[in-house]
Every structure is written in C-alpha cells, then in structure tokens.
C-alpha cells in the first residue's frame, strides 16, 4: 500500500489558531528549519504530515516545501491552483474523481472529474513529477500527451476506473516516457476507436526499458503480439504483466519463456488457439509455470479452457493472490487447484463454484485475508449457487479474514453472525444480497441481527455495505457499535428517517456515505449537519429529499458543496418542492466548481 498524504481542509482551519513562534535569533532559526526539514523527510504518511503542518506557520511552510506525495480524495475539494501554490515540489499525486456509484451508471455522462485543469497546473509547477495515480477521472488523449511531454522524469502512471482516452494517448506515453516504470490500466473504459486503433505496444523505445509493471487487460483492442514479446524481452525489470483477452495460451507460453522473473501475471484468455477440448500435449505450459519460481499472483483466465488448468499447479503453493473472477469454473474444476493454494491470501472468484467450492477454499486457505465472490449472472433473479452455507464455511475456515465482498441471492442471519464471531480481524464487510429486501431465508426475519453482530463483534471494522431486508433497528446497531466505520453503503433499506439519524448520531468517524433507494427525507439529512465537514462526501439517490431541504443544507454549511444531479436539465420555477434524484455533497476549500454540466445544480 503506497503511503498517502491527504489535503484535509481542517489543516487550513487549524492554522488560524496556531501558537506564536518563539523568537529565535536568525541563525538558530535557520538551523532549526534545517533540522525540521531533515526530520520531516522521514515523515511520509499523510496523517503525520497533516499534523505537522498544523503546528505553526513555520512548520506549515516547511511541510509545504518538503512534502513529496499528495493524496486528494476528491478532486473538487481543492483546486489545482491552490495545490500548486501551497506545495512547491511534488513528486507523486493521487487524485480521485467521481463518486463510486458512478461505476454503476448512477452518475450521468459528462458529470465532471476532468483531469485537464490538473495536468495543466501540474505541468507548469512540478518538473520533477514522477507518479500520477488517478481513479474515476476523465482522462483524454491530450492529457496523456501532456504527461508524456511535461514530465521528463515521469515513471509511474496508474489509471483506475478512468475513461476518455484511447490507444492514441497510450502510444504517447509508451513512446515518450523514457523512464517509465509502471503503466497500470485497471478497469478503464477506453474510447471507441474503430479504425484508428494504434498499436501502442510497438511504440515503446527499442532500447532496454525500465518497465516493472505493465497492466492492460482492460484495453480490449487486438495488438501485435510480437511487439509485446520484444518489449518483454528487453524489460529485465518486469515483475508484473497483465495482458488482455486476445492473448492465447500459445502466445502466453512464449511470453513466459521470455520473463521467468515475473511475480504477478495476468494470463489473458487462457484458451488455446486450437479451441479443442483436449489439452494439446505440445503446449508445455507446465514447464513455464514451473520455471516461474517468483510467481505469486495470478489473474486473467478470461475465456478459460479448464483442461489447461493443471499447468498452474507448480505455482499454486507459492500463490498469495489468485483472481478467478472471470473464470466460469465449477467446484470440481476449482478443487484440484485450490487444495494446493495453502498460502493464498487474496482470492477472487465467480459464484459458479457454489457453496461446495467455497467449502474447498475454506479447507485449504487458512491464511485467507481478502475474498470476493462475484455473480456470474448479475440480474437480480438468477439462481446463484452461493448462499449462507458458503459464507458459513468461510467463516469457519478462514479466521484471518480481513476483507470480504460476497454476492448471493439468499442469506441467513446465522451465517453472518458466525462470521462476526469467527473473523475478528474483519476490516471490510460487504454483503450484497442481490434480490431486493430479502429476509433471512430460513427464519423470514430481517437481516438486522446479522449486520448488528458484525458491527458489534468486528471491532476493527472500517467499511460496511449492507443489503437484504433491513429495518431501522439495523441502523441503530450500526450507529451504536460501528464507531470506526469510515465507509458505509446502504441500498434499499430502512423504514424511516430514524435509520439515517442513527447513523449520523453514532458513526463519528464516517468519511464516505453512499445511499440509494431508502426512505430518508429532509429531516434525516439535516440531522447530519454536525458531521458533514468531517466527511469526504455524502451520496443520496432516489430517497425522499426535496430541493428545499438540500438548499437548507447548502445554506447552513458554507464549506460544503451541495450538488443536485438530475437526468435532464432542471427547470427553474418553483422547484423547491420537487424531489431530488441524486444528491452529492462534499466538503471543499474552494466552493462550487465552475465546470458543472447543465444537469447538475449546485445549491
């Protein structure tokens, strides 16, 4: 986990109350400053940095001069100009844009989070910028070209859930960033190019490269495999490679021969060119995997032909991370693999393995920390084959579990309670019962008891997503026991305003709250006023809020921006008493943004 520094608005507030400095003679002052700088070099964590900057003006200045890494959790909380004015020499920046519900089509196209104003400001100010990491931002090809041209020392580019660029921009990065170390494209949505797809992989310089990580499984266009082979051959530092679904097993074989030093491999399709049902004996992948002695993370398997799975047996015992979440595997197909993965800590899988498959996981992977079970068929009414039984198995077999994301159709309180008791290390508990308002499948009761047990027993819990039939009682539990919760996601739950009031009263560390389709109205919203400045954002869609209520909120909290997002342009006359489609509220140092599209109204 990279160390992250954040810009918190509180810093500026605290500055007003900073104590006066001691009066030192000029030379001791300079010595002191030098000492301070040296000490601060050692402090990289954002919370430490924020604390030091709040001590007094001198420390604030020193921090501003020496801070190298910036973390901006909401790109609209602060402006590029302000950042550039305060921090003099930044090497690494993390920027996050759209709210997470944008991933599920709840934020209309064109909402914002454009990288353009940032790249311009950063380009002018930070010649030494080396790392850019963006999440849910709109990044254009021009932006990528700017990066390639403005930062001669540029090393790491990481784009997660971004959109707006194409292979043209990637080509610019490949070609011009001579010190490129990391190019991670994760779950991005590239622009459609039709005829103009560029073979960007062939644009990397012909010399030995400094590449350590190349992840492009989301770039769905075909590419020249020979270019990739050549690139891999001249990238001796390459540790992480994830290819797209066009790469067949035969091609994968050639690549693996060229890069036995890989630690992290995304296998692309994992199907053979021939498409035959029987494994081709000439395709000797087993030896490739056997030679990859450093390999401990595997993913890909996008169009898996299970008859080739035995090829990965040699590395199973070394695996700490295995991502089968695109592989349609049955329990029987999974079993021989998973039973060898004793050191597995991260496992992502499809629900096709069923409760039986999860039982195998529970028996083999006692060190499991992060489990995600995704649905093959994401409609609400499919017959998912994982249920409370699978969850119970995992609870019993994986006591070190820290994070879980579990999609299912049916659940019981008992299984959830079991997990709360057996997995005390849980930090993240995200349960998605896909059918709306589903009660306990055995008792018919709401799922209040299960989630209540989670917040009560899992004392380290910082992130929670709830689902199923939930009354206000569940939220009473969450408010009472969920003291460390920073991120809470609620959908189709609760009975009244009381539910939300409980949360606002009790969850004092709440940073991010996302709600959809709950019966919360204006009075519930207002009850959260004291908390809002400490939160990064609040999202409420399809609830019972009126424009008037949101306006009241906006007026009482000047440091908070209140956006009402509709699907069509808002009309202006007497809209106060209209219900609000989506509310997105976030704290900000710079007030309302200037790039809001017509369907966004900032109150």
């Amino acid at each position, binding site marked *: 986990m990279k160390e992250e520094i954040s810009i918190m608005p509180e810093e500026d507030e605290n500055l007003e109350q900073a104590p006066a400095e001691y009066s030192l003679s000029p030379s001791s002052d300079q010595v002191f400053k030098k000492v301070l700088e040296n000490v601060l070099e050692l402090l990289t964590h954002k919370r430490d940095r924020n604390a030091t900057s709040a001590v007094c003006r001198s420390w604030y200045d020193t921090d501003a001069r020496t801070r190298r890494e910036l973390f901006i959790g909401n790109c609209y909380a602060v402006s590029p100009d302000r950042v550039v004015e305060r921090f003099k020499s930044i090497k690494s920046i993390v920027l996050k844009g759209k709210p997470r519900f944008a991933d599920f089509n709840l934020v209309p196209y064109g909402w914002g989070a454009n990288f353009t104003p940032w790249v311009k400001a950063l380009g002018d100010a930070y010649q030494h910028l080396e790392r850019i990491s963006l999440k849910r931002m709109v990044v254009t090809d021009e932006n990528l070209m700017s990066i390639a041209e403005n930062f001669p020392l540029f090393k790491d580019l990481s784009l997660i859930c971004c959109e707006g660029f194409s292979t043209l921009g990637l080509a610019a990065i490949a070609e011009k960033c001579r010190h490129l170390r990391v190019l991670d494209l994760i779950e991005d949505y590239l622009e459609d190019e039709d005829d103009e797809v560029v073979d960007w992989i062939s644009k990397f310089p012909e010399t030995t490269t400094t590449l350590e990580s190349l992840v492009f499984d989301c770039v*769905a266009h075909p590419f020249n495999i020979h270019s990739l082979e050549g690139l891999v051959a001249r990238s001796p530092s390459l540790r992480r490679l994830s290819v797209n679904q066009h790469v067949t097993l035969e091609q994968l074989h050639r690549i693996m021969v060229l890069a036995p030093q890989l630690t992290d491999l995304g296998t692309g399709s994992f199907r053979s060119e021939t498409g035959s049902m029987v494994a081709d004996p000439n395709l000797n992948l087993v030896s490739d995997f056997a030679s990859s002695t450093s390999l401990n993370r595997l993913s890909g398997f996008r169009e898996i032909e299970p008859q080739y799975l035995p090829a990965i047996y040699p590395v199973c015992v070394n695996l700490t991370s295995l991502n089968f979440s695109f592989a349609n595997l049955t329990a029987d197909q999974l079993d021989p693999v998973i039973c060898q993965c004793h050191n597995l800590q991260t496992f992502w899988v499809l629900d096709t393995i069923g409760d039986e498959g999860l039982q195998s996981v529970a028996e083999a992977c006692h060190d499991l920390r992060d489990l995600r079970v995704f649905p093959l068929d994401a409609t609400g009414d499919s017959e998912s084959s994982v249920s409370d039984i699978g969850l119970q198995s995992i609870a019993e077999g994986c006591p070190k579990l820290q994070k879980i994301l579990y999609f299912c159709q049916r659940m019981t309180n008992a299984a959830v309670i079991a997990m709360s008791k057996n997995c005390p290390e849980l930090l993240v508990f995200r349960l998605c019962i896909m059918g709306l308002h589903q009660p306990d499948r055995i008792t018919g009761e709401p799922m209040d008891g299960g989630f209540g047990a989670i917040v009560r027993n899992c004392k380290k819990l910082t992130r929670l997503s709830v689902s199923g039939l939930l009354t206000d009682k569940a939220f009473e539990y969450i408010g009472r026991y969920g003291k460390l919760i920073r991120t809470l996601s609620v959908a189709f739950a609760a009975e009244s305003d009381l539910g939300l009031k409980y949360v606002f009263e009790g969850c004092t560390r709440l940073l991010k709250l996302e709600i959809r389709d709950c019966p919360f109205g204006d009075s519930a919203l207002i009850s959260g006023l004291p908390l809002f400045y400490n939160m990064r954002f609040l999202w409420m869609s399809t609830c019972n809020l009126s424009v008037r209520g949101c306006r009241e909120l906006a007026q009482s909290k000047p440091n908070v921006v209140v956006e009402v997002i509709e699907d069509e342009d808002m009309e202006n006359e007497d809209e106060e008493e209209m219900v609000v489609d989506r509310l997105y509220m976030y704290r900000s140092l710079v007030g309302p943004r200037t790039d809001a599209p017509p369907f966004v109204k900032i109150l």
Partner: protein
Amino acid sequence: MEGEAPRLLDLIPKERDWVGKEVCKVKNEIEEKLELRLGLPGEDNEKEEKQSAKSAFSLSFSENVSKRAFLGSVETNEGKGTERKASGAPPEAHGTRNINSSIANNSSQTRISNAPVVGWPPIRSFRKNLASSSISKSPLETQDGGPVKVNEVDINKKGCFVKINMDGIPIGRKIDLKAYGGYDELSSAVDQLFRGLLAAQRVPLVNEKSGGEKNQEIKGLLDGSGEYTLVYEDEEGDRVLVGDVPWKMFISTAKRLRVLKTSDLSVSSINTVSRKRAATEC
C-alpha cells in the same frame, strides 16, 4: 415464504411514511414486455401488499421509466444484455421515487419479479456479460465503451417529463408522459405515485394495523367522480381537465400536472377543452 409474511408484519410496526403499495398491473404499450405481476389478480389486498415488496422499487411507470428504461435497453443493444429479459425491455424495477412502500412489508419477496434495477446489483459493467463471454471470442469492446455510451445516449433521448403536484403533498414529483400509452395508464400511475404519500400525510402518527385501510386507491381522476381530479397546465398556463384531447396532443401540450381536490375545483377556474376551443374560435 409467504406463510411467514404475517409474522414479519407483526414484528415490525409500520412507520408513517412507508406504506405498502399494491402491485402495479399496468401494461405500458411502449414497454409491453414489462409485465409486473407480483400477485395474481383477484388475490386479496393484504396478500398483494405483502408481495408488493418489490413494488416499492420495481414499479416502473412513474417518472423514471423512460430514462431508466433507456439505460437498460442501451445496455442490451450493446450486447451486454444476455441477462436482460428482452431486447428493448427497459429495467422495470429501479429505484424510483416511489419508495413509499413499507419495507417491512416486503417479507415475501421472491424472485418472481426481480426485474432489473439500474445500477443493481452493484457490479461494474465489464463484469456483466460473463455468461456469454465464453461463447464469443471477439474483442469485448462494448465492455470498454459501455458506461460511457449508455450515459451518452441517455442524455440524448429526452423523455417528456412534467412536474406533478398533489394537493396536500409537499414534495412534487416528475413523471414522463411518454412512458404511458394513454389516460388510463397515466391515471394509474398517478395513483401509484401518490397513494402511499397521501396515506402517510393523512395519518401521521398513528400506527394502524397492517391491512388495506391506509392505502386507498386514488380513483376517478379523470371523470370527476373521485376525491381528486387530474388537471394539467398547458402552454398558456391555463388549467385544463385531463382527458379530453387525443393522447398524443395531450403529451405535446401539457406542461405540468396537478392533482387537485375535486371539491376545490370551481367550474370557472378550470377550462374544459371545448370551452377553450370555443373561446379561441370566436
């Protein structure tokens, strides 16, 4: 499952705002593949209420159908739609503003009408057509462009949204006139939209026993026979009774809807179409 529903109702007192709604049985011409059938016709009210769990959120025809529908159908067209029920069939169930349904009532939720809801379950687009991905070996480009396209098209397709306010209900709603095939559907939609809200307004603090009493159907909107009457405001700002002109003409001229108490309507303040026509023709 259904046998357990009464137990659940006993356990959870009804709070004021969230009242069970009846199943919507309206068929929309445009989205005729949408059949919201949560219960059999002729079943008693109570059972329908229990089964209407989904109804809270599954009931389409209020305002968002068209646009949500569009989102759904675009996804379908993109080839992601193996899990969508039919081509062009919009997601009928989605989080609409019709959330005036007692969540507590939703015990007997079965999967019968778990129609697709926008953004639910919360899975990113590129994880969504895995069921068919083993069949196709072509580049899954639609995955990449998915959400961008969906929203793009969404912006371009305009429904015909008008505001609608009801006497006695503080917060107005919006509905998409294009989502309905005719006046009867519209009337039903209005009933669905406001019934729960109205009941909640009437009995703010009393916990009534579960049952059909609270939810009285809002009837007679079009013929003056009910407690409420539907009127619209046209381009000139005049209030006109709904129901006289051909539907298509109505959609294009109605700028706003109101649900007024029939007793408050005075003959002179409300025009009928014929009177207006007569007036302009003189």
